[in-house]
């Protein structure tokens, strides 16, 4: 087991290095840098010291040096937790991302919990009542859930809720509490706004999970050891929950690992539509304005989370499933 973890760790570090290089290349793909945009801005303002300012900035970010030098400078900071500065906001990337991380994690984890709590019972029900009326209904709705773009759900829910409740929707707070310090009333207000993003973000995940759980459980229920358990005279509940469901959960561990980057990115598209103060819209703006340190840090950070998530899932699987060989 230790050797297995060690081997996986080595390959993980190797992948991370490659990921950071590729991420840096992707972010540097667009012709020109943010400085070109900035220079144009300064020109419009008619600043006479524009060239000097630009040169100073170029020097500071080593933009006058070759690309590999920039990469080494950036990645060596990355390891120390210094991600560079955002051009657009003129602030530390770390600070910007950190400010939004709290809400992002709350929304993501809430929607993750939501989708798992809903999906697992439905998946189990669907598999144990295959082709029954209820199963058909759930199957139909999970197909719909897989087919509706999440931003469309967000839009429709916002329209419906503002028609029905007449309240302003979007964001995580009402205007009155936007800048207010935390209080009980603000917390209640927060919860009132939380449900829309949680449902919207959770929904597409729920549909996929239901399909997966149903399929896995159906496969397992055909296994001989389930038949044996029934033949032994065990009650149906024990057969299903102790023997079948436990084993059907294994593939889901993998998908839990893959949802790790989603926790820090939130759902980008939905967050933009709902104007949530999460990291997704920040990343998106950074991409559009070629704010390369912000965008690059975020892209690589998410990839690293995915690699770590897969690593954790592998280990978790090896722990829960004794059939997995470490070779």
């Amino acid at each position: 087991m230790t050797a297995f973890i060690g081997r996986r760790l080595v390959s993980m570090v190797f992948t991370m290095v490659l990921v950071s290089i590729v991420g840096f290349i992707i972010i540097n793909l667009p012709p020109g840098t943010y400085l070109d945009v900035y220079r144009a801005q300064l020109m419009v303002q008619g600043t006479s010291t524009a060239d000097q300012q630009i040169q100073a900035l170029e020097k500071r970010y080593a933009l006058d040096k070759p690309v590999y030098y920039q990469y080494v400078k950036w990645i060596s900071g990355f390891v120390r937790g210094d991600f560079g500065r955002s051009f657009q906001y003129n602030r530390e990337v770390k600070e910007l991302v950190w400010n939004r991380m709290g809400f992002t994690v709350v929304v993501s984890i809430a929607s993750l919990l939501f989708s798992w709590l809903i999906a697992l019972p439905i998946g189990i029900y669907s598999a144990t009542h295959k082709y029954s009326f209820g199963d058909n209904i759930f199957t139909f709705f999970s197909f719909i859930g897989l087919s509706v773009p999440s931003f469309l759900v967000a839009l429709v829910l916002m329209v419906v809720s503002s028609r029905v409740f007449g309240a302003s929707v979007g964001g995580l707070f009402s205007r009155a509490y936007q800048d207010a310090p935390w209080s009980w009333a603000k917390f209640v207000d927060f919860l009132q706004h939380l449900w829309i993003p949680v449902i919207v973000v959770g929904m597409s995940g729920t549909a996929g999970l239901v399909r997966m759980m149903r399929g896995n459980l159906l496969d397992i229920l055909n296994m001989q050891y389930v038949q044996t358990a029934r033949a032994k005279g065990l009650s149906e509940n024990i057969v299903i929950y102790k023997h079948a469901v436990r084993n059907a959960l294994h593939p889901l561990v993998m998908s839990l690992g893959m949802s790790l980057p989603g926790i820090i990115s939130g759902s980008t598209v939905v967050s933009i539509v709902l104007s949530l103060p999460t990291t997704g819209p920040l990343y998106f703006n950074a991409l559009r304005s070629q704010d390369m340190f912000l965008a690059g840090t975020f892209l690589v950070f998410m990839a690293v989370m995915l690699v770590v998530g897969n690593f954790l899932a592998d280990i978790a699987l090896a722990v829960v499933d004794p059939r997995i060989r470490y070779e």
Partner: protein
Amino acid sequence: MTDITMQIETPTETPEIPVDQERGSLTQGQLIWRRFLKNRLAVAGGIVILLFYVIMVVFPGFFGTYNYNTQREDAIYAPPQLPQWRDEEGKFHLRPFVYGLETELDFASFEWVHIVDKSKKYPVYFITRGEEYRLFGLFRTNIHLFGVEPPGTFFLFGTDDLGRDLFSRVLQGGQISLTVGLVGVILTIILGSVLGTISGYYGGVMDNIIQRIVELMMSFPDIPLWAALAAALPPEWSPAKTFFAISVILSLRNWTGLARQVRAKVLAYREEDYAVAAQAMGASDRRIILIHMLPNAASHIIVIATLSIPGMILAETSLSFLGLGIQPPIVSWGVLLQQAQQVSVVLERPWLLLPGFFVVLAVLSFNFLGDGIRDAADPYSN
């Protein structure tokens, strides 16, 4: 030597076995087709897809009422006009008609308001001449499936902020949205099966390199990666170039999954007796791959391809919705939905959400179709 090969290759005469039921004489393809037809949802999905491709990809100009880019200052945000069969006196008309639309400036809000004028009726004509468009992008023609005589207007889905007919735009947008998925899937199949086969068949260093690339591509979460690549497209590129680039970007991450699966299949087939036999008979690698392995993996590849099209359509829609995908004046469903970005706009003009309905319908149909093909192609399913 050649004699021996000839002998082995000629099929040995099988003794006549009386076929007592039709089923025994069906080929594998016919069996798959039968199983597929039994799945009603899959068949329905297939029919919808077929209709979508004929109407939107092949003949969007003909089925649309107007040219999708014609702007009308007097019809900004006009609501949908539904065809009527019964007039206000309750009289039934065999030929449907639409009421006239009066446009006035509301001096309080300085917005155009549209009032249905029931005194004017415009009959709907079929196979009629209207605005000019290009058939297949080549021939100029002006024949539309249906339309009304000017000054009457027929906006089935209403109009957008520039007074363009939304129905015609939805059809035109479908052409792009549905093709992006198709082009992306073709690229996915080519990349995935070629690299997957090489990886599985030859193994060794090539296998190692390809698998590391696959792992690397899989290490990036999809939407952020697509967004980053799409943002890197130079804005001065022509719309056609951007369109193709978007398809490439979408398939760039998608082929990895297919490559893995094809590799696993090829690895398994390589050990099969028929592959070993072919090798022993001196068949070239190319022959073994093309004649013995790929046809075996074909059903698998087709299933994965069908199931990955909806994901691509959704991705294109999301990217274009955010302004990172297809760029106007080219329209796609995502571009059309950009108009519905603000809730306040949608509240007053709910018809702007209609393109979303088509996205859902297309994706749903592809999901049903793919599921049906998967179940039908699996010889062990009941």
